[in-house]
């Protein structure tokens, strides 16, 4: 029994040792922080409670270096802060799993769900859906990823005949895969609960390809130590799927109108692309340099 305890202690020390090796990193959040600091709200119209599932970089994820509510970051967080400012409400973000987000909006536990939702017919039946917002190329481009050895070899839908394509259940990718490959001799029976599991299946060769939103694909590839790459195939995406929407309780038409007005204004002022670029840098997908920021996170304009 003593030896067991020793083993455990050793383990704990190993973990602690690993902890000591943390390396200093460049300030990835500079551009993001700059955008975030621009928002302000007196909160005179009460609170705006937002349900969000922060496990989906770069749309919403955790920055472990920050604490409390500020630790939840990403494109949708900027959008939520923007909406709170426009509606003059105090922002409260409630983190929860993706399906709980919908339950929260339905039960009135949250005013609005902002978590990279795409429009689907069923969602339109059960929720008030806001106008579209555009998270860079996260949704406009929908791609297929594969193991590195197949990089760039599959560019037409016909190239995938005889293979297995996986996707996240109840997602836009499911709709796209079914539309594109449903009639072909392609195995599309592999549905995953979340992207992380799907990526493991891809690495373990249980599935040949994964359909992902382009932005998520970039995050996955950036973290895969060169094991994963884009096939070169992009889906033809119908306009109605291209962008994200917010979910609002069906009865809350007053909020829906205000949110739509604010979203329209953001679109007209072209706010989205800067936010999205900042979040891509933050999530480690791109560098400040690549996306035209200087080292302090200021967008360089020609």
């Amino acid at each position, binding site marked *: 029994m003593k030896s067991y305890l020793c083993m455990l202690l050793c383990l704990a020390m190993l973990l602690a040792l*690993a902890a000591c090796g943390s390396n200093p990193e460049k300030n990835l959040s500079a551009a993001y922080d700059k955008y975030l600091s621009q928002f302000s709200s007196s909160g005179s119209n009460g609170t705006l409670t937002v349900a969000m599932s922060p496990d989906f*970089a770069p749309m919403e994820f955790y920055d472990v270096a920050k604490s409390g509510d500020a630790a939840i970051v990403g494109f949708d967080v900027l959008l939520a802060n923007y909406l709170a400012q426009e509606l003059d409400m105090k922002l409260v973000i409630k983190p929860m799993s993706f399906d*709980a987000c919908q339950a929260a909006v339905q039960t009135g536990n949250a005013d609005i769900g902002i978590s990279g939702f795409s429009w689907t017919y069923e969602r339109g039946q059960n929720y008030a859906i806001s106008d579209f917002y555009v998270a860079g190329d996260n949704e406009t481009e929908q791609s297929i990823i594969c193991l590195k050895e197949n990089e760039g070899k599959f560019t037409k839908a016909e190239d995938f005949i005889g293979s297995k394509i996986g996707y996240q259940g109840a997602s836009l990718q499911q709709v796209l895969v079914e539309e594109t490959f449903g009639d072909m001799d392609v195995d599309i029976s592999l549905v995953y609960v979340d992207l992380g599991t799907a990526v493991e299946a891809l690495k373990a060769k249980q599935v040949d390809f994964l359909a992902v939103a382009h932005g998520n694909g970039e995050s996955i590839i950036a*973290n895969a130590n060169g094991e994963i790459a884009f096939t070169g195939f992009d889906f033809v995406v119908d306009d109605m799927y291209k962008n994200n929407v917010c979910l609002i309780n069906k009865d809350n038409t007053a909020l829906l109108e205000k949110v739509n007005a604010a979203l329209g204004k953001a679109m007209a002022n072209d706010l989205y692309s800067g936010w999205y670029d900042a979040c891509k840098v933050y999530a480690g997908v791109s560098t400040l340099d690549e996306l035209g920021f200087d080292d302090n996170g200021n967008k360089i304009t020609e």
Partner: protein
Amino acid sequence: MVFLTNVANIMAKYWQVFLLQGIGYTLLLSVIAVAGGAFFGSLLALAKRSGLKVLKAAVAVFVEVIRGTPVLLQLYIGVFVFPMIIPKLSSLPYIYSVSIVLILNSSAYVSEIIRSGIEAVDPGQMEAARSLGLTQHTAMLSIVLPQAIKNILPALGNEFITVVKETSLASTFFVGELMTAYLKVKGNTYLTMECLAIVGVLYFALTFILSKLLKSMERRMKARA
């Protein structure tokens, strides 16, 4: 090898999320659940042994419903329905609703542990005490309960270990325990198996240490008896 490198890299960057927040919140939730559960569970066990038929029936229904439904479902109801009943809850972080649900859940199990612990004491003990002239009350307190506690404590320890693992379901609401730590880091890195392996080792270490502690406590109790 890539796997181990990934694990090391993840630990280097996110060790606080796993070791401080994750383990901290897991232990906090478990202690709250079991302490609250022990308190309310005792009350429930008392109610069940009382003469009031209505009270007995109510407790029986509560215990059956809690034991007959999944914890995840209870958490959803706690988080989304409790605030409708207690408006104060809606402005508090989810950890409050989650704690209440875990306490309720644990109290149902603990009440059964206590009931069975008392019932496991030979009825002859009570009869003997009564025939020696002790009142029902004193006989219960000084004859039956001390023996019952010896049955109850180990089972309570097991309940604690079960609760440690059950708190993982609270990650649905990102309250910060180990499984939430997994979700946070996985969301950033898209490295699922590595994060799961870390969390798995930590859960095992927690429950293993706890069960060893409980074992040694049990041994000491036996030695004293």
